[in-house]
């Protein structure tokens, strides 16, 4: 007896087709917003001559982390990238990370707050997060193409989906971790739900939320690299080119560039997150 094959793939395909057909206005608007945002960020970073940008970044990192070592490291690392001729690709990658991280946080943190405050939201969101986090990253690339076509916006879209879960999860966790006694105290003194959130829960959850932000940035960076496959360009694009042409040297140079960017971002975010 033949068991009929359940058309899981077909169903998903059909629903995505449906969305593409009927919601193109939404995707177009999304696309326009992201494109402009990306242009502004990238334009701003290109406006400065590289040496000034590197110097300013070094100073900023030093101020933020209060560590001269990390400041010097970031200047040296960025100079190396400039020297390897990867400056433009690096700026492009950083812009993609900034825009997709901002979007992911803009959606992720409020969703996390809602999930912490409402158990029904929580019950819907948490399983979706499990799916989002276990689904191989490459799979997100596919629906991005019919929605946005090849290019940066598709890259940002898949990056947002990939990088958002930790922001949601850790925001929710941070709020739920606020000691029960403090919540009880806020209640006993007659706080409204909103006052309790703003005056007690969010400040106490901040370190955990910052850990989520850190993870989101790191995931965004890794996804932006993978998204080179659908035309994101940047450092990932250089790696992708090197794979296709089997240019080991170029591939590693771009790889080192990614590592440098990742380390600078991670150190800065960790220091900010651990500060009281």
């Amino acid at each position: 007896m033949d068991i009929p094959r359940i058309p899981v793939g077909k169903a998903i395909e059909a629903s995505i087709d449906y969305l593409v057909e009927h919601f193109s206005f939404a995707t177009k608007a999304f696309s326009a917003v992201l494109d402009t945002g990306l242009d502004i960020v990238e334009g701003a970073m290109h406006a400065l001559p590289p040496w000034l940008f590197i110097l300013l970044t070094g100073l900023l990192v030093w101020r933020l982390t209060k560590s001269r070592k990390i400041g010097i490291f970031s200047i040296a690392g960025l100079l190396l990238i400039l020297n390897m001729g990867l400056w433009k690709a690096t700026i492009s990658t950083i812009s993609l990370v900034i825009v997709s991280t901002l979007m992911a946080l803009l959606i992720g943190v409020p969703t996390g707050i809602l999930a912490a405050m409402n158990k029904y939201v929580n019950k819907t969101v948490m399983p979706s997060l499990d799916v989002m986090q276990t689904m191989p990253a490459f799979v997100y690339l596919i629906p991005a193409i019919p929605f946005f076509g090849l290019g940066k916006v598709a890259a940002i879209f898949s990056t947002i989906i990939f990088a958002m879960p930790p922001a949601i999860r850790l925001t929710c966790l941070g709020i739920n971790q606020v000691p029960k006694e403090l919540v009880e105290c806020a209640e006993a003194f007659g706080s409204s739900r909103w006052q309790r959130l703003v005056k007690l829960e969010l400040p106490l959850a901040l370190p955990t939320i910052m850990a989520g932000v850190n993870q989101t940035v790191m995931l965004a960076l890794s996804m932006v690299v993978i998204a080179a496959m659908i035309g994101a360009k940047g450092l990932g694009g250089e790696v992708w080119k090197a794979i296709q042409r089997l240019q080991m040297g170029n591939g590693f140079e771009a790889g080192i560039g990614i590592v440098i960017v990742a380390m600078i971002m991670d150190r800065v975010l960790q220091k900010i997150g651990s500060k009281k």
Partner: protein
Amino acid sequence: MEKIRVEKLYKVFGPQPNKAIQMLEQGASKSEIMEKTNCGVGVNNTSFSVDEGELVVVMGLSGSGKSTLVRCINRLIEPTRGKVYIDGTDITSLNTEELRKVRLKKLGMVFQNFALFPHRTVCQNAEYGLEIKGMPLDERRKKAYEALELVGLAGWEESLPDQLSGGMQQRVGLARALALDPDILLMDEAFSALDPLIRRDMQDELISIQERMRKTILFISHDLDEALKLGDRIVLMKDGEIVQVGTPEDILTNPANDYVRRFVEDVDITKVLTAESVMKKTEAVGYLKTDGPRAALRKMRKNSISNLFVLDESRKLMGVVTAQDCARLVQEESRDLASVVCTSCKTAHLDTPAQDLFVIMQDLGYPLAVVDDDNRLKGVIIRGSLIGALAERGGN
């Protein structure tokens, strides 16, 4: 006037609270109910009231439901059945917003583990309730400073809670509640997490604050000594039920059942009984204005005592005279009783604990005079009668 009234209050945790209450009414035990309905009984049919300006201690061992009971009063825990009235308003019938208003206006709470907000300074913690109320910054800061000064924390306003010791942290907790100037203070094991010495300080502090402010206080404690020291009345709980309600002396001298008796067995009775409760009224006193040495001697002989307390016309204690001195005056045919009155005689106040009396009475050649705030003689204590009184009340 009645400030808080709790009427037939039940709190059952678990899936079938109504069935559990039914079983309770039929006299089933806690463990039986747990077995049959999977419900835990927190509070079982309790009724009591607290008058305005009264400090009532709800006292019981852990698991006796006292913390649940106090949380039912401001509905941090929803009561399963029964009523709670504050100023005649039934709290259990209020909606969320009305409840919030009552909490804001009337109820301050102090928690066992302080529950200070770690990200706020001491002052910001103390002003939290006022901030919630929407009071402007200047005004609430001023009130917070006043409250902090009241609890002896002036100068610490801008510190963070974790820079303070446990005792100081709980002072902040107390200031946070007092800053709101609520009618009612709920204190949930407020001093239980403190070292014994600091706990005693805080108890004394609370007593002195209470003397000035006369709040209605419901104080939760598992420490009998604390309950006896602080409480105007004590509500003794066991397994979610009230076993006895009464003044500290009631509880000690007339325990309602064996449980209470066993409970109070180990109490050091000398800490609880005051001079007032062990003193004897005395009729044998001399009046400086009317009595001469002869009259004084006659009074002493009549009551077979060898010393006599001498009072002025408003019964204020002037001092003590001995039979010997009076006899000498009679021989010298002097009428001047005042010349032999020993004005530096030791006295005790009505509230002096019995344990302190032993020290005061050591090497005292005459009975101890007990006086009130205005130095009026209220009674006397003779060493023998002190020990007798203690033996009689202690019962062990």
